[in-house]
């Protein structure tokens, strides 16, 4: 059974018809990537999963339980955390405070403390800066903090919205290495939304390519890597 299953999900974003029937399945323990050019509906898909956008049609199931009607903080409690697009660090909170806010819905104080150690080990640069304000970090550091904050919820499924956005290639590969570590060593399932197809395909197991609110292509990363439609969906080539 898939950990997360979307069945024909439709969503309107304000007046915009952003999703026109998305179906996908994420197996436990895998890294799945959702690709597509800007405006294809990637972020809206994530928002539908986390409950910040209410789908207007279709169903979303997590471990077989439908998520419809749940509030965002209930969904977080079920074990779905999110690393939002553009990092969205709390700028006026310190690094440690930011990380603790990721664990807001948890009650197990010792568990939170040990996870904090874990995250700081995973991202040593955050340990150095643990008392600095989130807003004072560089872009790459903020992205690490955003991921760390997501991990602090100890989720079953971590959603990442364009973790490579605006970062230098070397930082991007560092971040994706860490994501693979998290996936392997902690058996955490990841759904990575990316515009940067190459880096995503190199690191994921399975991928979906979105095009204007629909899934255009899907397959294993090897299949997608060879599929010319992937490039075309980005570059707008006709046929």
């Amino acid at each position, binding site marked *: 059974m898939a950990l997360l299953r979307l069945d024909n999900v439709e969503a309107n974003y304000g007046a915009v018809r952003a999703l026109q029937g998305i179906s996908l399945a994420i197996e436990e323990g895998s890294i799945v990537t959702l690709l597509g050019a800007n405006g294809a509906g990637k972020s809206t898909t994530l928002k539908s999963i986390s409950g910040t956008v209410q789908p207007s049609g279709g169903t979303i199931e997590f471990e077989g339980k439908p998520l419809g009607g749940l509030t965002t903080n209930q969904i977080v409690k079920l074990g779905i955390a*999110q690393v939002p697009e553009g990092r*969205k660090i*709390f*700028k*006026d909170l310190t690094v440690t405070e930011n990380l603790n806010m990721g664990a*807001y819905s948890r009650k197990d104080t010792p568990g939170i403390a040990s996870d904090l150690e874990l995250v700081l080990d995973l991202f040593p640069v955050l340990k150095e800066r643990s008392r600095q304000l989130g807003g004072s970090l560089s872009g790459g550091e903020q992205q690490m903090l955003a991921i760390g904050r997501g991990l602090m919820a100890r989720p079953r499924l971590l959603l990442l919205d364009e973790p490579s956005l605006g970062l230098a290639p070397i930082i991007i590969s560092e971040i994706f290495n860490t994501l693979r570590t998290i996936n392997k060593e902690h058996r955490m399932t990841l759904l990575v939304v990316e515009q940067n197809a190459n880096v995503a395909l190199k690191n994921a197991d399975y991928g979906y390519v979105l095009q204007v609110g629909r899934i255009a292509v899907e397959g294993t990363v090897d299949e997608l890597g060879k599929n010319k439609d992937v490039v075309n969906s980005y570059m707008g080539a006709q046929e």
Partner: protein
Amino acid sequence: MFGQQVISGLATGSLYALTAVAVVVVFRNTRTINLAQGDFSMIGAFMALIFIKDLGLNYYVSLGLAVVFCIGLGILVERLVMRPIADSDWLTLFTATLGVYYILHGVAGWFWGRDTKAFPVTFDPTPIKVIGGLLSQGHLINMAWAVAIGAALYYFFKYTKQGIAMRAVTDDPETAELMGIPVRFIVLLTWGMAGFLAAFVGVLIAPIIYVAPEMMDEVLIKGYVAAVFGGLYSIPGAIVGALLIGVTENLAGGYLGSEFKTVTAFIMIVMLLAFRPQGLFGIQHRREV
């Protein structure tokens, strides 16, 4: 003379500060300028007066009960009035608190009358010498309370989960929601805190001024002015602003004449808004207002 003016200015300023902090906390988490903040204090003062005079309770017990009452009042206002219109434009939120102001004013006048009442002074009236000036014990005790509450707030915002969450909501409510922080609950907490601070201001200021429905009007205005010093956003900015207003108006009153006392704050605010609309501390307002 100068030292004394400054110290008693700081004493009044510290009460403005508590009001200003409440204004800031509510504004930055709900976009609402709470016009009823002063009346929360006024109700608190009346409640304390009843507890002390009519029920014969101890001063501290009365203070505690007034605080509990005002927290309840803040929460009630959030649930009944503000929550249904939480997504409205700024003017709607503002005028809604004006409605609350009118109601609390009317209720106070209805139950307790319009005439001013003395608040039983429980402190030794002999002034004490402090750094070259004489200061009443009441003023000193008020300052001590203000410092203690300030320390408690610092602890709350720095070290407690809900306090940090409250700051996170200020910073970015949408992301806070994504992290599983129940933003509505935090907003409720914010209004509770406004009530908490209001009760202290009301009870502490009552022996200095008097108790009446309009007792807080002028203090509240100065609270706003102080809050604008921090761009309606920064708590330290609001506290510094409040102390600055307390001292400046006291000096203006002492050296230029009492008629200049009240106008000082407004000259300061008009100048500040004209030249540094983002507040004295250079903080950009985070959200469109």
